[in-house]
């Protein structure tokens, strides 16, 4: 075998095909680059499903064991705030989808508007979540921090429980509500963390979109972020019925 061909800097430069500035050097074509990054995003979402899967498994097992506790504890959640938040999140998915469309059709101002709306709706979601969390803190429903069983031992004293006509739980079952709230905070907290990360990236994207970054034909970043945002939305679509709705008529 001969020695390696002697290469000059010129030869290497010439080997670079003319390509758009956003095409990374190690890709042969733009299609390959878009395919690869999209595929990567789908795989990442798959890992996220496995991640949340662990929480859902824990929820299903414990719900099965301590059914009355889970029913009574879920009555403490405010369905109106929950439904409103679902609406907010679905709307934000809509604005995000519109944003992707704007980027694809190179509408800069439309893109900035959509991203800003998504950003704001995300903040609204977190704001409502904060209100819900503070209700829990007031009622001492935060596991591990002076957790109070009052609403479950004596539901008549608690309007949220009384509204469903809850019967008092036995002490041992009432204690299991703490597990429900542990899961509630773990699951919605993990979801909120994903929202916060998403909102931070959205802020960065708005900044870049105003400079016209995504409206020159290279929209993979917006598309992939859109996938992420819809995924976070879908997680909520599972959390909402499991935590808020499933036990409403028990």
């Amino acid at each position, binding site marked *: 075998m001969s020695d390696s061909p002697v290469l000059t800097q010129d030869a290497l430069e010439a080997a670079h095909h003319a390509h758009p500035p956003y095409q990374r050097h190690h*890709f042969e074509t733009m299609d390959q680059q878009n395919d690869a990054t999209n595929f990567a995003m789908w795989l990442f979402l*798959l890992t996220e499903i496995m991640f949340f899967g662990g929480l859902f498994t824990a929820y299903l097992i414990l719900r099965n064991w301590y059914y009355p506790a889970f029913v009574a504890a879920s009555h403490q959640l405010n369905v109106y705030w929950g439904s409103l938040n679902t609406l907010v999140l679905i709307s934000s998915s809509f604005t995000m989808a519109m944003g992707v469309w704007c980027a694809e059709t190179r509408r800069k101002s439309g893109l900035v508007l959509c991203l800003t709306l998504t950003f704001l709706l995300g903040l609204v979601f977190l704001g409502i979540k904060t209100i819900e969390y503070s209700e829990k803190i007031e009622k001492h429903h935060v596991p*591990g921090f002076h957790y109070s069983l009052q609403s479950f031992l004596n539901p008549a004293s608690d309007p949220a429980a009384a509204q469903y006509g809850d019967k008092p739980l036995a002490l041992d079952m009432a204690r*299991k509500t703490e597990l429900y709230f542990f899961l509630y905070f773990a699951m919605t907290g993990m979801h909120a963390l994903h929202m916060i990360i998403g909102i931070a990236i959205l802020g960065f994207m708005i900044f870049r979109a105003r400079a016209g970054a995504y409206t020159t034909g290279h929209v993979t970043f917006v598309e992939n972020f859109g996938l992420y945002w819809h995924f976070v939305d879908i997680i909520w679509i599972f959390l909402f019925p499991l935590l808020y709705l499933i036990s409403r008529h028990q």
Partner: protein
Amino acid sequence: MSTTIVTLPDQSTARIPKMNYLSKENGLLSWLLTGDHKRIAILYLISISFFFFIGGALAGLIRLELLTPQSDLMATDTYNKIFSMHGIIMIFFFLVPSVPATLGNFLIPMMLGAKDLALPKVNLLSWYLYIAAGILALYAMITGGVDTGWTFTTPLSTHYVNTNVITTGMAIFIAGFSSIFTGLNFIVTIHKMRAPGMTWFRMPLFVWAHYATSILMVLGTPVLAIALVLVVLERTVGIGVFDPAKGGDPLLFQHLFWFYSHPAVYIMILPGMGVISEVISTFSRKRVFGYTAVAFSSVAIAVFGFFVWAHHMFIMGISNYSVLIFSLLTMLVAVPSAIKIFNWAFTLYKGSITFETPMLYAFGFMGLFTIGGMTGIFLGTSGVDIHLTETYFIVAHFHFVMVGGMLMAFLAGVHFWWPKMTGRMYPEKISQLAALVTFIGFNLTFFPQFILGTLGMPRRYASYPPEFQVLNVFSTAGATILGIGYLLPVLYLTWSLKYGEIAGNNPWQATGLEWQTQSPPLTENFVELPIMDHEAYDYEWLERQKEKEVASVG
């Protein structure tokens, strides 16, 4: 050596190509901000070696303590911290990233004929995550350590120990994301970055093995991540889903933990199997016997590997019927490994074999992995598992697979691709000696542990009944030899960076695309886009290429 196949270039005129990935840019920043998969692989190689020797030093302390039956060298809680940190560092900071993040990172794009991995920045990010996790783990170790064992069994880890569980847990969480990103990058690269003509069944088996590994990394690691998050939360707030006192289920932790940690065993061995396929084919100058079977056996291991986790829980009170199912599936997952061993053995048949260092390590791998695999059958057999589990038999079994298997494969791979990575040969004689020393030391260290385990000596004991001492003395003596076996390569490989002979493009006359370019390669790997017009391991194609070149030069 008359039988060697090394065809080094004429050493009087030989030189390292001026333009290569090492020389392209200089300075620390050009390394720390690089997107080049080869440079990231080198960064990984240095960092995992560092962690390997920390883990190795801890192993040395363990063996020293076990020289005598009393816990006299250190207090029991110190011993517990040391074996915990040994396990954590060796598994999460050495074995999981060992072959994939170094050799895989370096070679997968080259083997596929690509310029880089699909996501170079993510690749760099994954190294930084690894480093951050490593520093956090070391910080946890220095500021008091952790004594839960690497398994973090609840409720011990959540309510009963007062060591750095949270810090270590977070370190492993971050290391997990490093591993997820590596796996994700490999899958995307293998799907989308193959050169023209590189069909799935023309890919080297090394790539197939990494594809299977990556699937395990991407789907398994997040489950470990959430299990650790729940442990950390439970420790922080004092209540959680694993707490039996509050109505939680400690077995749920076992299920979640082993859902990752059993596939993790395959994450740790499959890439090694990939290395062995390449090495054995090259040094017998023959295509791998039953390519498709070996390729599919990797995928089969990955798929079955997800459904055997509860065999770690046979005595933990899971129902007898789940024991039946998991024991049966464990038997099924053993079959692909057996297929691989026999296919490698038959690759030698009618070959033209030479015995360079990588081949010696590969032979070591085959022997030790066979023992490691067969002892796995003992443990998968539910009845015998009752007696052998949680004893030194388990310890010996997984060290045969992890150290005898993966570490041997890692060393085989590092020697095999050393000329490609650095452009220089390692010194052959001393490295053959190192391979031999490692093999002898390894057997002396771990074989007595099978007998200890059968006799009933439990694992994770700082002190033990005196009748077990003799075998423990053998084991400690072996560990000393093994330590020398691992230090030697560091010394002579470092030496070879400056004084090794110039290797040339393809010293082993191997067929992989990575050998058809200069050593060390260009940053872009190839001068022009390679086109794969032949099967993998096509030595006749290689002969024709050589003839062509001779003709054109002539």
